[in-house]
């Protein structure tokens, strides 16, 4: 941790200078007879010196990340200029959303930046996710027992991102079932999901070199209603007894109906969803569960494509930014409550 001590102390130094600068503007007109205006030069000089020292230490200790740091600082400078001088561009923007726009821009640029870095060949380490290794094993088990694989893409339509992620994962599962020549059964609850799932499966069977195994009714519609769909899928499970069940998509209350029935027929169950209220049921009733964000990154994990792996790295960096923002907001809000800082950061988040 000693390495980072220098960086942390320098950034705290910068923070303190910012607060002093803020304090000077608001409170004092002159100190010890010095006019405030020439105090600005002193602060700007010390500020830029500490900033340069900070950048030098970071580039020495984390050479790989220096590009990222320059890029984020450049972004902050642009936003500062943009807010202070108020370039003409503001007129087409709705008043008051400039902060939200800059957050969207920052997140997009960070993601794009790390995707480009991954494309240009940088190796990216990804921690293992238990559920994903089990997919191959589950399909293998289904082939041995001569049973089919059941894939449930959730009950929402394509207007939910979880359903899109579920379909992308269906592509990978279909590729494995094609390779192992296992039967694949995809009951769906929405017609548009049926069409998109057929596109994905046809593509995967083609890519696995077994287009002969693909038939359209592998993906079949049951009904639009939540519980009639659950009853139908329960019926399929109890009568056809698939060896492996995948629940990947957006689920509501019927998640436990499916998971408990799957458990009663002794199938391996791998679940993944972005609906926070259903994760507890999957955690208790299924063998492997992709919790929240793991579900969304699973498709990138399996694809092994550099740009997708890069976007996971970008996602982590944005998470780091969010954590830093939380700490920063907490401290600055604390200062604001104590009256040391004039600007209440919380108003920034009002929509």
């Amino acid at each position, binding site marked *: 941790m000693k390495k980072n001590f220098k960086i942390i102390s320098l950034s705290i130094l910068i923070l303190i200078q910012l607060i002093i600068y803020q304090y000077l503007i608001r409170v004092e007109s002159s100190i010890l007879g010095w006019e405030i205006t020439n105090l600005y030069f002193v602060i700007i000089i010390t500020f830029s010196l500490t900033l340069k020292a900070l950048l030098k230490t970071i580039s020495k200790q984390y050479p790989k990340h220096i590009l990222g740091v320059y890029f984020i600082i450049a972004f902050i400078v642009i936003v500062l200029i943009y807010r202070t001088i108020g370039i003409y561009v503001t007129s087409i923007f709705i008043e008051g959303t400039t902060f939200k726009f800059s957050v969207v821009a920052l997140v997009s640029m960070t993601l794009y930046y790390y995707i480009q870095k991954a494309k240009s060949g940088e190796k990216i380490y990804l921690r293992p996710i238990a559920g994903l290794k089990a997919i191959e094993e589950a399909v293998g088990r289904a082939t041995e027992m001569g049973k089919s694989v059941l894939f449930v893409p959730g009950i929402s339509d394509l207007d939910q991102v979880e359903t899109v992620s579920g379909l992308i994962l269906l592509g990978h599962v279909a590729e494995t079932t094609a390779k192992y020549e296992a039967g694949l059964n995809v009951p769906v609850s929405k017609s548009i999901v049926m069409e998109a799932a057929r596109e994905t499966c046809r593509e995967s069977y083609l890519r696995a070199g077994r287009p002969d195994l693909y038939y359209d009714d592998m993906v079949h519609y049951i009904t639009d209603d939540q519980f009639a769909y659950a009853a139908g899928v329960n019926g399929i499970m109890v009568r056809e007894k698939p060896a492996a069940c995948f629940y990947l998509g957006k689920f509501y209350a019927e998640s436990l109906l499916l998971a408990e029935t799957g458990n009663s027929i002794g199938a391996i169950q791998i679940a993944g969803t972005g609906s926070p209220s259903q994760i507890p049921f999957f955690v208790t009733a299924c063998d492997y569960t992709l919790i929240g964000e793991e579900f969304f990154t699973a498709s990138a994990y399996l694809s092994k494509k550099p740009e997708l792996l890069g976007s996971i790295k970008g996602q982590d960096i944005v998470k780091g930014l969010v954590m830093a923002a*939380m700490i920063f907001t907490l401290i600055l809000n604390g200062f604001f409550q104590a009256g040391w800082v004039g600007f209440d950061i919380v108003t920034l988040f009002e929509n």
Partner: protein
Amino acid sequence: MSAEIFGSWIVVFLTLCIFSYLFDDNPFYKAAEHIFIGVSAGYWAVIAFWQQIQPNLFGRLWPKLEDVGEGSVLQSAWYSIYKVLNFISTGFGILDRSIFPEGGIKGYDEIRLMYLIPFILGTFMLLRLVPKVGWLARWAIAYIVGMTAGLRFYSFLNSDILIQIKASTIDFSSDWGTIINGLIVFIGTMTGLIYFFFSKEHKGSFGTLSKIGIYFLMIKFGASFGFAVMGRISLLIGRINQLKDYSTAEFNYATPIISIFIIICLAIWSFMDGGNKNESTA
């Protein structure tokens, strides 16, 4: 009032068919399941048409305008298409007018030609039935997924990240209890987020932080599970309450009679085919 009793008997019968699934998969459950699939598919198809396509699409393309008057040539040409559609929909004039009422559909007050686009994209979806032209449905899927990505990007970024950052601030002026609890929530959120780091090995101090994070997540899962138990039980209570109401003389003792009938049949069936327990279907 026999319709009332007939209705209550159907309700009790279907409820007990679904409950029979708890015992095992049996003909009663299979029957109830298939009825449910058929009726609900039809129900949602009807709701989709009468509450989406007719009022929102046709209603916007051919609204019932007050000052119909002579209107522009274009407008009368447009409404002649409406008459043709009505002619087709009433089976060349045999059935009574239902989908396209006289002079346009009440609801909106001006024609919105922009709604031709979803009309076309919708027909592209239906073209999926024609194999040669089936790929056109991709344009409709492309519109939907594009819209989803755009809408959800901003709404989740705004409501589930920015507003949560704002919410994590602590009111330091309040009493010590709230401050400590606020810090617990803050630490829990930070460690929870650390658990979701993918591109960093969970080793050393980073590993212990992520372990604390998963503990907070597990407490949350336990809590929402405990909560769910309560919600589910109240739904079961609602069902059994209704069965109790229907067991009175007023409904000719519907619940007792039907439940005895089902239990007897289940006993016979499980006794008869006790042998081939694991019949696998073709």
